[in-house]
């Protein structure tokens, strides 16, 4: 609650700061300070809410559950990490640095709404607040045609998916006569499910699939992620996607849990298709940035397991997956922006030129591939465990493991290029001691997640 107000105020402050301050560096410094302050506010929110009794806000429009606040805190932490790692790169995108940071604050506002909504309208507003700044960020590199193309494509297809989402909400309202997601549970019965309600659930599922880039609604992802300025791709692919997943899980866990027999198979097919498309298509990419776009589809396939499971472990799974995936991906993008050439060949010989960069990249890739002792392993473990505990869909778990094996191929190609191929990678901006320090901190976080995942879990 305090965080929602704070992030809005901070966003406005950033916008006005752009009017008075022309120095990009001071703006970035101010932004970093405000992100740190925001993290403080989320922690304040977290500590002042008791674990067992969620607070109902604004006439039950929002409900601040403990795990929601925990998610907010962790994601704000990831955003702070993002700003610390990439603040310098944000300054290079264009003239309006303060506005980029302001938009990121507004995105976080959408994230907070999505983790706490208790009403379909708030969910809709949250998704729009989350999405619209992204359309702008995607096109922020105005001189670059690809960036403008990405922005326009994202906007067009996003508008399409918004239509689907609204359709779903309307149908659900028709069936349940309420927007309140907790009240909705009692009004729909599994044995005689209204076809309106089922259609509504499927429409909402498809709209969310679009937001989390699950097949067959994933088509926008490679083009948008590839075309957008790399710094903003990093944010979209991590924090934003995690927020969409959290909202997805929240609705399906709270409202549609008891109806899972009606939709679980459809979602299982979406999951299988997502894993297949993401992993298999990533194999043939020549650009690491585009490979990461497909990998984000593949990782979305794993996160969908949490939604499939609808149990307590799923909450732990989504939180640990969100943070493990976000931290590692932000780390990889932080290395990527340092390079001029985004193809695999651009990484050739990096281990000789920048051994530390090559090492941390290796750890991040290990984490994405799910190698033990990294966060990615624990994340995959928890989401798969959640499904295994449900005792069905074992075929999907096995399929996911096979797909994870494929992912090793395209992740390790980068490692092979860095360590075993000769070449002189071109560095676009000098790697300073501060950069190295932040990368090592990020790397340490990845390993900490893999060794002591309990630190990042909370009571659900």
């Amino acid at each position, binding site marked *: 609650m305090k965080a929602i107000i704070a992030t809005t105020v901070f966003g406005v402050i950033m916008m006005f700061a752009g009017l008075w301050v022309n120095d990009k560096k001071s703006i970035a410094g101010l932004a970093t300070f405000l992100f740190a302050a925001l993290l403080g506010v989320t922690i304040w929110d977290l500590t002042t809410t008791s674990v067992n009794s969620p607070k109902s806000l604004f006439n039950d429009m929002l409900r601040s559950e403990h795990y929601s606040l925990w998610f907010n805190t962790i994601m704000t932490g990831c955003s702070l990490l993002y700003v610390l790692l990439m603040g310098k790169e944000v300054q290079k995108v264009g003239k309006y640095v303060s506005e980029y940071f302001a938009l990121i604050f507004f995105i976080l506002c959408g994230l907070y709404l999505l983790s706490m909504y208790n009403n379909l309208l708030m969910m809709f507003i949250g998704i729009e607040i989350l999405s619209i700044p992204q359309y702008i960020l995607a096109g922020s590199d105005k001189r670059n045609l690809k960036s403008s193309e990405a922005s326009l494509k994202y906007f067009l297809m996003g508008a399409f998916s918004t239509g689907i989402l609204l359709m779903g909400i309307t149908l659900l309202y028709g069936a349940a006569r309420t927007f309140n997601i907790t009240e909705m549970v009692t009004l729909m019965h599994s044995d005689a499910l209204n076809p309106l309600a089922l259609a509504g659930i*499927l429409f909402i599922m498809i709209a969310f699939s679009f937001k989390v880039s699950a097949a067959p*609604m994933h088509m926008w992802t*490679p083009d948008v992620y590839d075309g957008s300025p790399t710094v903003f791709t990093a944010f979209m692919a991590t924090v934003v996607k995690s927020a969409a997943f959290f909202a997805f899980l929240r609705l399906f866990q709270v409202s549609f849990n008891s109806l899972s027999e009606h939709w679980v198979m*459809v979602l299982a097919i979406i999951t299988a298709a997502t894993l297949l498309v993401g992993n298999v298509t990533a*194999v043939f990419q020549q650009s690491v940035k585009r490979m990461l776009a497909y990998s984000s589809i593949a990782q979305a396939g794993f996160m969908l397991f949490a939604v499939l499971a609808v149990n307590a472990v799923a909450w732990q799974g989504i939180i640990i997956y969100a943070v493990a995936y976000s931290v590692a991906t932000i780390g990889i993008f932080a290395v990527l922006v340092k390079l001029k050439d985004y193809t695999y060949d651009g990484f050739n010989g990096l281990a000789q030129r920048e051994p530390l960069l090559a090492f941390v990249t290796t750890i991040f890739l290990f984490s994405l591939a799910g190698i033990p002792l990294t966060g990615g392993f624990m994340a995959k473990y928890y989401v798969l465990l959640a499904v295994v505990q449900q005792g069905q869909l074992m075929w999907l778990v096995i399929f996911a493991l096979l797909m994870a094996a494929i992912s090793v191929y395209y992740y390790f190609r980068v490692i092979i290029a860095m360590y075993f191929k000769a070449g002189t990678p071109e560095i676009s901006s000098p790697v300073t001691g501060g950069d190295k320090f932040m990368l090592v901190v990020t790397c340490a976080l990845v390993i900490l997640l893999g060794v002591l995942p309990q630190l990042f879990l909370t009571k659900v």
Partner: protein
Amino acid sequence: MANLVYLVPLFPLIGFLINGIFWKRMPKTLGGVIGCVAILASFIISLGIFFEVKSASFQGPLVVKLFDFIQSGNLNIHFDFQVDALSSLFLLIITGIGFLIHVYSTSYMGHDEGMVKYFAYLNLFVFSMLLLVLGANYLIMFIGWEGVGLCSYLLIGFWFKNRDYTNAAKKAFVMNRIGDLGFLVGMLLILFNYGTLAYQDVFAKLPAAHTETSSMYNWIALCLFIGAMGKSAQIPLYTWLPDAMAGPTPVSALIHAATMVTAGIYMIARSHALYDLAPMALDLVAVIGLATALLAATIALYQNDIKKVLAYSTVSQLGFMFLALGVGAYTTGVFHVMTHAFFKALLFLGAGSVIHAMGGEQDIKNMGGLRKKLPITYITFLIGVLAIAGFPFTSGFVSKDEILLAVYEHNKVFFYLAAFAAVLTAIYMFRLLMLVFMGGFRGTHDQEHHLHESPAAITIPLIILAIFSLVGGFVQIPHLFGGHDYLNQFLGKAGVPAVIHEGPGLEMKEWTLFGATCVGLLVIFLATKKLFAVSQFDGNYSGFKKVLANKWYVDELYDTIIVKPIGALSGILDKFAEKAGIDGLVNGVGKTVRWGGDRMRLLQTGQVGFYIFIMVLGMVALFTLGFFWIK
């Protein structure tokens, strides 16, 4: 004090980490000091633990819980240490003798550029061994067991630029792995049958001795014994130990005296409750032990490498220990481990001192008459030889006498064969002593010129070990000489059973043994001098002697019947199964995925209209599924 037991392995681990991480930059002296201090600290705590265990107030085995190690379903394995008489005695042997060997190494390895790395390995070795004896369940023992195997590999191949040395290291590792497989299977059998690996829980589930027979006990005991065969160098897995001489000499001392080879004895003594129920496996232990004792003793007769003689003597003495275990005299086996640790460490370190003085020469053909130039080494070595040969009242006499007595009461044929092996022991040890220290020098003039006594860091450990080799047996003086069985009583607290000798005729038997030993040794001493023609020794053998000098051609036999056929088989499998079958399958899967990726990539046309068309198609498909297929 016993609650601080976790410190005992912790210090060597810290020493290993410090030396292991900074070995490139650390000064040699500092590395040596860190290595020694780590073991000394462990030794002091071990002493404290020992006296606490020895005190009357100590009640039964103490299990010190450290943390939960593996929890999965019904399987629940804790990382616990067990403190009792058996483990505390081994702690003393490992850290005490280990410390002396560390001190010795500071001088012996002083000129080696990899000295800090060497100390890191040495500390890791001791750490692994401590883990092995301290673990309160078989899994932790297994971790230590594997760690010991790894460290022996690292140390035997320490001078890895020499191809033969790395081959010896590989041989040791592979032989040990064969044994480890047996241990692993035994462990799984225990887990499968009893659902736990903790000693106390497993043994509590065993029925009282001899009330119930089941082939399962024999199978478990047999599998565990296969593990012991590998680690403690028994037939047929003994050939790695003599080759392990490739490592630096103090490492040999460490492997032969304090760590590694005693692991098998410890494991069987620890599992005695199980072996008591497995008479067949126990008989096998005795037979294998006896056969190994004899075989190794005959080989040792005609070896020309000073360390090889000692190596085969270790194999032979280990055979004696297993013989003792096999006839049910568990405490006696452990007792011989202890006395053997004293004199074998002494002999190896003495041999190291000789090699050091000879400038790296190990062939006794080129030695002789060293007693004048190396007086301290000579005297201590002599004490070691007397002890291992069983000269009355030395430690070796007491323990071997006890083994023979136990065997005599078990089986007369075994006794005569074991006594014969003991005679052989005396012969080859006297031969070694004479060829090295007596007569005239047979080496080059240059070597003679360089002969010198070793520095204090080498001689002081020798002197300390010599004293223990002399008096170490007094904890268990034979009944005949009015002694006590302190050790039996001590180990009895851990529930390790002893063979109690009593009844009429006992004194007679002991007198016979004692008398025979005295007379026998004198005869052997005189005979050896003639038999081996010390004065004109040239190191060449013919006829049967050559067979013995070539170790009964066992290495060649293994090579022909095992290594070569496996090599041929692997060649065939590589050609047909691997390249054609498995590679084809694996590459086929990879190619299919790549092909799929190449096709699927084309779906991404970049046209928004096409994307939305695909989305709509997907939605229609999902709706059809959701409405008509599911329910």
